[in-house]
């Protein structure tokens, strides 16, 4: 199959179908509504379920119901909608059900705006909903990677019986790039027969619940969930390095669309002979602490710069990973502004003391 030029949002819809998603429950919100528009057409074609719910609250609870009934399910939304879905996310994580949530992040807080942002990083990685739970969170930076990670998200959701979230900024949703579905197939489905609520013919009833009033029972569940998150930290860390192998002086950490801008800036600096490398987390929970620390502690690296479309959220994870062992700097844009390569070039020069005016 030849590559197709697709908008990120449409590519997400097709990727979910390739991944074998059986049901999609949604509520329109910019900048991700094209996913719903795409699936309104596609889901019936593949015998899947499409429901436009009355709110994100309801859409996400439909996901809860359908996931507990054993279906491979997902939804997409954008920041304010994700806040409303956070209720169901907590329940779905608590009930240990597989489901995929995709957040095409817009700028905030509040209604904010509809332009690209990475302002929901903390909400995604530290838990937007209540209680002691985590999502596995992936952050693609191209449309092809969005397709591949969407499919992967369904596999991981099944592997851990835990929700997986994909975060992309508005550009990931709105941009068109060539995508290849060649060789992509649905991950094998988890055996749900031991717990799904499908009617109790021939077996004892299954109960999917999250209320555990006995503290020892609940703590045991908390510990079991913690063990899953620890396993994720061992097995699901993903990252990419760019031009880190030749003793760079400055390491720039960025994810998603921002990492692409950083890449361009790194290329330009390299043309000037300035040695800069990039570290791009792909899994942001689990965060690639150890790989980042290793790159940052290469003796040539004088400092680390974090670039985000926020006022500093992943920064906290980088800070934790570095343990204070390298000077840490931050460059952030907000309000829907995407950092320009030129300003990153200037910032890197400034930090290395060879910008205009010098140090």
């Amino acid at each position, binding site marked *: 199959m030849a590559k197709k030029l697709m908008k990120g949002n449409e590519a997400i819809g097709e990727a979910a179908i390739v991944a074998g998603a059986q049901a999609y429950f949604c509520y329109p919100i910019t900048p991700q509504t094209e996913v719903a528009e795409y699936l309104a057409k596609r889901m019936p074609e593949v015998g899947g379920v499409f429901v436009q719910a009355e709110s994100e609250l309801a859409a996400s609870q439909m996901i809860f119901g359908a996931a507990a009934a054993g279906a491979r399910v997902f939804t997409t939304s954008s920041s304010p909608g994700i806040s409303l879905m956070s209720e169901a996310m907590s329940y779905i994580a608590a009930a240990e059900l597989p489901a995929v949530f995709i957040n095409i992040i817009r700028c905030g807080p509040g209604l904010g705006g*509809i332009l690209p942002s990475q302002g929901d990083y903390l909400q995604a990685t530290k838990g937007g909903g209540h209680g002691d739970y985590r999502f596995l969170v992936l952050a693609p930076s191209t449309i092809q990677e969005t397709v591949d990670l969407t499919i992967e998200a369904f596999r991981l959701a099944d592997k851990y019986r835990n929700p997986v979230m994909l975060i992309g900024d508005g550009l990931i949703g709105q941009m068109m790039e060539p995508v290849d579905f060649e060789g992509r197939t649905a991950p094998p489905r988890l055996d749900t027969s031991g717990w799904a609520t499908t009617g109790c013919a021939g077996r004892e009833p299954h109960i999917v619940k999250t209320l555990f009033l006995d503290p020892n029972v609940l703590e045991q569940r908390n510990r079991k969930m913690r063990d899953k998150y620890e396993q994720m930290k061992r097995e699901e860390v993903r990252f990419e390095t760019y031009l880190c192998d030749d003793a760079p002086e400055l390491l720039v950490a960025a994810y998603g669309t921002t990492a692409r801008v950083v890449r361009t800036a790194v290329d330009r600096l390299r043309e000037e002979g300035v040695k800069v490398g990039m570290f791009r987390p792909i899994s942001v929970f689990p965060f690639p602490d150890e790989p980042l620390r290793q790159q940052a502690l290469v003796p040539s690296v004088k400092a680390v710069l974090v670039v985000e479309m926020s006022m500093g959220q992943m920064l906290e994870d980088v800070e934790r990973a570095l343990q204070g062992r390298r000077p840490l700097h931050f460059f952030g844009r907000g309000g829907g502004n995407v*950092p320009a390569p030129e300003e990153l070039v200037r910032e890197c020069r400034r930090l290395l003391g060879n910008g205009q005016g010098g140090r």
Partner: protein
Amino acid sequence: MQREVTFAGFGGQGIMTAGKLLALAGMAEGKEVAWIPSYGPEMRGGTAYCTVVIADRLIGSPIVNDPENVFVFNRPSLEKFGPRVRPGGVLLINSSLIDVRSDRQDIVQVCVPCNDIANALKNGRSINLVGLGAFVARTGMVGLDTQRAVLEREFGKKGKGEALRAASEVFEAGVRAVLEGQGAKTP
């Protein structure tokens, strides 16, 4: 090697489609491409613009603040994007709707009366294809024949060849406009 263009105009001028057709031609030539739209409130009656990047390696920043080329289809777009053209780049101006020129001396300005050309062919809605023909002919960002093949593929599906015939007619008129001097350099 990376080349860029921003198409800018108002909603309904087919700006986004022109960009998509160009990106498809880039793909057909085996290049990396990205099509980046304006979206949101700007889609609703205001200016609409998209940027197309075609490169022979992985495309980094999808945001290009100083595109190599810009094609403006209305006056507000000239004011917004005229100053951003990279020095040495090309600014194409839909002179049917824009009666002024940029005062920049470090870029090449090319006028194409897109609406007049499209209207003369009784296809007033297809000013985007006039512009696309003129743009590809002038900049060579993709091969003209590649672009023609993409039009054939995209419009050939619709109707009984009528859509393709109409699209080709305006596209070729745009090509001729720059090749035969109608799209003369200004002043």
